[in-house]
């Protein structure tokens, strides 16, 4: 296990983490409070992690700092604990730092499963991965290009943009956000059952989907005699021949389902 307490003010650090076995399934788990994460699938067999903190200061702040530190040399700037570990072909990167300027640029083998959890804020971008991806954000956008696998993704506040190239082992998938758009490009021959809800937005698509609006109504009279009526509207669709379910929900955004 690597435990890194580092000063990362503007300075890029680089760590290589090997997998125990090149033949077995590989996975990468990232668990942060805050930070930007960018992951690219490559031909390499290990994981290369580059990370740094770009602390941005306004001109006024900069001038104030320079005045206070006049004649002094900077010896340290914000120590952050970043933990990287490898166990049974799973590499884990964890940080409890609340630093929105912390960023990770990670190169991984193409064939890998990813599980990313950012508890407070941060965006995630992923490119060219053959494996299953799970992303859980509190506040941030999810952007994925060239995914060859399953995706489950949620963000309390943020967009979800995904371009699949293939889904070799179709299973249930779920994409949810409160206040963002969900924009997904799927292979034109992919088959699935869709369960879609855009509470205050619209749903657009050029895929071969047979849509059917289904309104679930619940009617109830309480003990005090008050009457309650709930109109819960879902849009169900059959994409091509139908198949495993895809659940897509946004409260305030729009949904775009595109043909690749």
């Amino acid at each position, binding site marked *: 296990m690597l435990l890194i307490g580092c000063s990362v003010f503007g300075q890029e650090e680089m760590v290589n983490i090997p997998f125990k076995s090149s033949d077995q399934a590989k996975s990468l788990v990232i668990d942060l409070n805050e930070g930007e994460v960018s992951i690219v699938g490559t031909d390499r067999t290990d994981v290369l992690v580059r990370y740094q903190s770009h602390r941005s200061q306004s001109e006024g702040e900069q001038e104030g700092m320079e005045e206070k530190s006049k004649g002094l040399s900077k010896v340290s700037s914000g120590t952050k604990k970043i933990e990287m570990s490898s166990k049974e072909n799973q590499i884990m990167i964890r940080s409890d730092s609340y630093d929105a300027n912390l960023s990770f640029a990670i190169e991984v083998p193409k064939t890998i*499963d990813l*599980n990313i*959890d950012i508890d*407070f804020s941060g965006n995630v971008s992923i490119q060219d991965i053959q494996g*299953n991806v*799970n992303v*859980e954000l*509190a*506040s941030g956008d999810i952007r994925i290009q060239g995914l060859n696998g*399953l995706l*489950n*993704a*949620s*963000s*309390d*506040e943020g967009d979800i943009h995904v371009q699949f190239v293939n889904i070799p082992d179709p*299973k*249930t*998938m*779920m994409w*949810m*956000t*409160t206040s963002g758009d969900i924009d997904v490009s799927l292979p034109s021959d992919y088959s699935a059952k869709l369960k879609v809800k855009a*509470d*205050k937005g619209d749903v657009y698509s050029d895929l071969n989907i047979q849509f059917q609006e289904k309104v*679930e109504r*619940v*009617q*109830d009279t*309480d003990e005090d005699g*008050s009457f*309650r009526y*709930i109109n*819960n509207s879902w849009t169900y669709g059959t994409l091509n021949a139908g198949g*495993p*379910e895809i*659940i897509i*929900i946004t*409260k*305030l955004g729009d949904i775009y389902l595109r043909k690749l």
Partner: protein
Amino acid sequence: MEERNNILIQKFHQNRLEAAEKDELEMKIEQGDISLEELDLFQDVLQATSNDPILLPSARMDHRFYAHLDQLNRKQGWPIKLIGKIAAAILILLAAFLGGRETGTRQEKVPQLSPSQQTLQALLSTKDISEKIHLVSSISLQNDADAVLIDALLYTLCHDESKNVRLACIHALLAYSTLPEVRTGLIHAIQFQESSLILLHLAEAINTSGKKMSKEAFHSHINKSLPIFVQRKLEAVLTHL
């Protein structure tokens, strides 16, 4: 104490109770520490696997079971009876499964688990999030989804590490939201959540059950030690209900 109760129940069904333990079990039943329902649960599961010889768990399995039970016991607020049921179900199903594998060379017969039991076993044993979400979603499509499966969904909703798995549980439970025990379970689950997205979906699911729950009542169940930014975000998202 729950650990001791489970030991007594197990020994009772395996006819391994000593005289003093028999007296202790009877006293616990009299005092209501152990319900007849709990005894029946074990009996049902044992009967379901009675076609195969009952194999006693290995010391390693015993250790894992009690470690797991101890871990569950420490979870705040979760009904202890349900924990016992789930832990017992895991143990017995695991015992039946492993027993079947071990005796497979001697006997042709392998334990036949119902689709519900298979789903439960798979859900409890996998760590793969994609697989879990797929299994959770498939439960709502099963016609024979029984109380044990619904309990498993509610348990997963409260304790799974993955926010996405918890969201999948809420959507699977929507199919059963008019059942009183599901509605109660959904309300109970509020206190275990720290994500505003989950709380929003939970509030919607409770509303879909057809019974009125005011915003104030919903707030009263929320974990008061939630970080302030989650509370603020929650305030904002609940206005979208």
